[in-house]
Structure formats: structure tokens, C-alpha cells
């Protein structure tokens, strides 16, 4: 089978952008092409993930983004969420039809109301929306169940924020770069009790571009290609009440990715993980389901220090989604960050250990309705 690799990555700076989406997107795409020494004309295909109207005031945002992603008169398409875009781009290369595909995710969260005002639109108009459901409400209910069932403490959940926001201090491309203490988190407003304000991700601007290539092409473009070795995705039931919020589809998604990558013990095989944690406790729950620890031991995992930057399995050395949440782009950010760790190009937030295999995870929908897991290797 064909192999596909990430060759180059570019990200927008984490601060709120004064550029319009059109120009903002162009700058990052241009940067990734320049890094690869390619012209727009050299790229075979463009796949974007653009924020739809609820996040951008634009319907078919890819129509507007088309110029900025460099897609004029090119083969291209759009997937809604950015981890999907990445995988779709991989399909395109693996099919043998394209040597290079540019994947871009673009969003300006600063231009719309809070995520809490936007995510109710995930809900159906008859039932979930009128009873006030949004992503935070479901996360809060999920957190209470998680603590209830396994005795996870609020402090353990809060520690995730301290860790990730601490890591973010070393990432120039992230949004919120301000250290917080455990006390800060614990005393922040309980906006969705038991969820506290500092345990919820911000809303951010973010454009990230990833150039991927076939094996032959990748080897020509870079001496540090990052190979796709595993991919898994799984979708859960729509109504949260129809599911077990503590045992959703992440195990299924991860299982598929591990099987493809030939990984039997993820705790040993994965060197670093970028996990999508819009709510602090979710990092712990997702880590369990990714097989980094046993069921119900997410609290112990954070206590042990293993997931710290200098631990044996660093999780979110970039600062994660808690430090930067460009909503529809956040999955591709995780993939880009995992690739940078493998390339040894993460700069100040490069983890101490040697990275041979990295995991990137993305989730969207209420309480993790959809999960994608990508395994990358050097």
C-alpha cells in the first residue's frame, strides 16, 4: 500500500487576528508552501475545513475561503471538521491520484458569539435545543457522572488546566499564555457546576496548514517526513441520553487506529499525545479510553505526573485546546503539533524524550459524539 506523510506545517499566531478570514488564511497557506519550497501551481489538491455560518457568518465558507487556501482552479473539497479534512486529504494521496495535498483549517472565533451560543445549533430544534443543551451543559453532566462513578476529584480535573496552561507558556502559537494555579482554577466561577470557568476552553482564531505527500514526493520535500500509521474514527448516537457518556466511541476509534498502526500497548507505544480537551476533565476521560491508563484511573494518571511535559507520556505539550480553541480547526492543530513533536521542531515545548510515535485526537459534538484518532510516526 501507498504511504502518506506530513512534510510541512504552518500555524497562525495565537493572538486574535485583525485580518479578515480571507487574508488570514492566505498568510498561513503561503507560509507552508514557502517552507516546502513549492508554488501554488505545484500542489495537486486542496482540502479545507472551514467554519460554517454558525462560526463565521458565512454559508459554504469554503466558497469564500477558496482563494486564501490557494484552490483557484484546483481539484479540492471541504470536510466539516479539520481532522476529517486531514484524513480526506490522506485518502486522496493514498488513492494514487495526487502526490501532494494541502490541508487547511481556518476559523476566526473572535468574530462570533461564545461557543456556548453556537453549539446549541448541534441540537435538534424540537427537543435538545429548547431544553437548553449545548456542548458545555453536556460536558458538565458528563463530568458529574465521571466523578460520581470513579471518585475522580474536582482537584484532579483542575490539575489538567494547570498542566496545559503551563505548557502553553512555551508555545508561541497558542492563544492564552498565562499561568494559572490550582487555586485559580478551583475558585473560578462554577459556570456549569461542576464545571468551572477556567476548565472550559476559550474561543480562538486559528489557521493551520499541513502539507501532505506520497512517499516518493515526501522524501524529496523533506528529510523529516512524518508518516500516517494509524487512523480511526467513530460516531455515537445523537441524543446524549441514548448513550453512555462515560463509554462512548473513543475506544472504538482508538482501537481502529491502533490496529492499523500495529499497536497493542498504547501506553508504551505512544511517546506523546495531543488530545482534544475542550473541558479539563475530558483529558482524563479520553486518556482512559485511549488506553493510557485503566478505566477510572484518569485521576491517578494526572497525579502521577506521567502526562507532564517531562513525563513518560506527555499529553498536550502544546497547551491543548484549554489554551487555544479555534473550534473547527482544533483537530488539525492537534495533528500539526504531533507532527512537530515527531520532527523535533516544536521549539520550546518540544518534549524531553525521543518521539517516535505520536497520537493526535479530535472530537466534536455533545460529550464527544464524534472522535477521530490519528497515529503518526517518524
Amino acid at each position: 500500500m501507498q504511504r502518506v506523510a506530513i512534510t510541512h506545517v504552518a500555524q497562525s499566531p495565537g493572538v486574535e487576528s485583525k485580518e479578515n478570514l480571507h487574508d488570514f488564511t492566505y498568510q498561513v497557506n503561503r507560509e507552508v508552501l514557502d517552507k516546502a519550497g513549492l508554488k501554488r501551481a505545484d500542489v495537486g489538491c486542496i482540502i479545507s475545513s472551514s467554519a460554517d455560518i454558525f462560526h463565521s457568518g458565512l454559508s459554504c465558507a469554503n466558497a469564500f475561503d477558496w482563494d486564501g487556501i490557494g484552490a483557484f482552479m484546483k481539484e479540492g473539497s471541504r470536510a466539516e471538521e479539520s481532522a476529517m479534512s486531514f484524513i480526506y486529504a490522506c485518502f486522496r494521496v493514498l488513492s494514487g491520484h495526487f502526490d501532494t495535498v494541502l490541508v487547511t483549517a481556518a476559523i476566526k472565533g473572535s468574530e462570533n458569539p461564545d461557543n456556548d451560543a453556537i453549539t446549541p445549533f448541534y441540537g435538534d430544534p424540537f427537543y435538545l435545543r429548547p431544553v437548553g443543551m449545548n456542548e458545555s451543559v453536556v460536558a458538565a453532566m458528563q463530568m458529574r457522572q465521571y466523578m460520581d462513578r470513579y471518585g475522580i476529584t474536582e482537584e484532579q480535573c483542575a490539575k489538567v488546566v494547570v498542566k496545559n496552561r503551563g505548557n502553553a507558556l512555551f508555545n508561541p502559537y497558542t492563544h492564552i499564555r498565562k499561568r494559572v494555579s490550582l487555586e485559580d482554577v478551583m475558585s473560578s466561577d462554577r459556570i456549569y457546576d461542576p464545571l468551572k470557568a477556567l476548565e472550559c476552553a476559550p474561543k480562538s482564531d486559528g489557521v493551520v496548514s499541513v502539507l501532505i505527500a506520497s512517499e516518493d514526493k515526501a522524501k524529496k520535500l523533506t528529510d523529516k517526513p512524518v508518516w500516517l500509521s494509524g487512523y480511526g474514527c467513530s460516531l455515537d448516537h445523537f441524543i446524549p441520553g441514548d448513550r453512555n457518556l462515560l463509554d462512548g466511541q473513543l475506544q472504538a476509534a482508538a482501537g481502529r487506529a491502533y490496529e492499523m498502526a500495529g499497536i497493542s500497548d498504547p501506553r508504551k507505544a505512544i511517546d506523546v499525545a495531543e488530545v482534544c480537551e475542550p473541558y479539563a476533565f475530558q483529558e482524563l476521560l479520553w486518556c482512559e479510553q485511549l488506553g493510557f491508563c485503566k478505566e477510572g484511573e484518569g485521576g491517578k494518571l494526572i497525579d502521577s505526573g506521567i502526562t507532564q511535559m517531562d513525563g513518560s507520556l506527555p499529553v498536550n505539550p502544546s497547551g491543548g485546546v484549554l489554551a487555544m480553541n479555534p473550534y473547527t480547526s482544533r483537530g488539525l492543530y492537534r495533528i500539526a503539533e504531533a507532527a512537530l513533536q515527531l520532527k523535533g521542531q516544536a521549539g520550546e515545548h518540544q518534549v524531553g524524550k525521543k518521539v517516535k510515535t505520536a497520537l493526535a485526537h479530535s472530537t466534536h459534538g455533545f460529550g464527544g459524539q464524534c472522535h477521530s484518532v490519528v497515529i503518526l510516526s517518524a
Partner: protein
Amino acid sequence: MPKEYRTIRGDVALPYKWALGKTWTRFFDGLKEEKILGTKCTQCGKVFVPARTFCPVCLSDMAEWVEVKPEGEILTWTFVSAKYYGQVKDPPYIIATIKLVGTDCGFHHFIGGVDLSDAKQVRQKLKTGTKVKAVWRPEKKAEILDIAYFAPLK
């Protein structure tokens, strides 16, 4: 927050006419009569509320209607004090997942009849397993909010 750079402001506002379909029409008609209706899957035997046209697990048609007791127990809940644009009601309020007696899924709705002024006390009072009962809105509109909220049983 005012921006220090130039922007263009506007609202995207669009009208909708969402079809309920037969199943949800009947479900909401039931609420009007203070009845909570679910459907039972003949294949897996599970009962879902609100009623479904097809079983979310088996995808088979749901032919059997069941009236569900307007009582159940709390599976989980959150006390909302956050404020955001277009919010369904002014905070604070409580949203919960409730397992209605005889059903095989969680039902999402508000919890009322609780003093909301002190979140700590609410935490003392509401637990997993707390029994609740539907409180009906006097004026019915055949919609989900015909149930005003669920209140803890004394």
C-alpha cells in the same frame, strides 16, 4: 468587547419551518394531554423517550407506543450560571438527564422546585438517583416545554 480594529457587524437571521413528522407530532400531542409517550423496539425491546420513528440501535421501525410514568431518577445534572447570546432562559437554572421509569435512555429536561439561590445547597440536595416528577405547564402548546420541569419528590 469593542474591537480596536475595523469590523463589519451584522446578524444572520433565517426563518425555519421544521417538520415534526408523525412520531414527534404524536409525542407532542401526548404532552398536551399530560402524557409522556415513548416507543418500544420490537427487536431489542428497549423503550425510548421522546418517542422515535425507528430504533436508534436496531434501525427497525418502532410500532409499539407506550405511555411512560412522568417520574424517574436523576442520572446527572448541571447547575447553569453561565450567560450567553440567545440563551433559552435566564440563568441560574438546572438541566438534568433523567431516567424515566420503564425507559432505556436518559431524558433531558430542566429541574425546578429547588431553591436556586445557593448552588452549594443544590449540590447537597440533588444526587444521582434522586427521584423526580414532571411538573406540567398550565398552558399547553404541544412542545417539549409543556413539561415545565421535573421536581424532586418530597
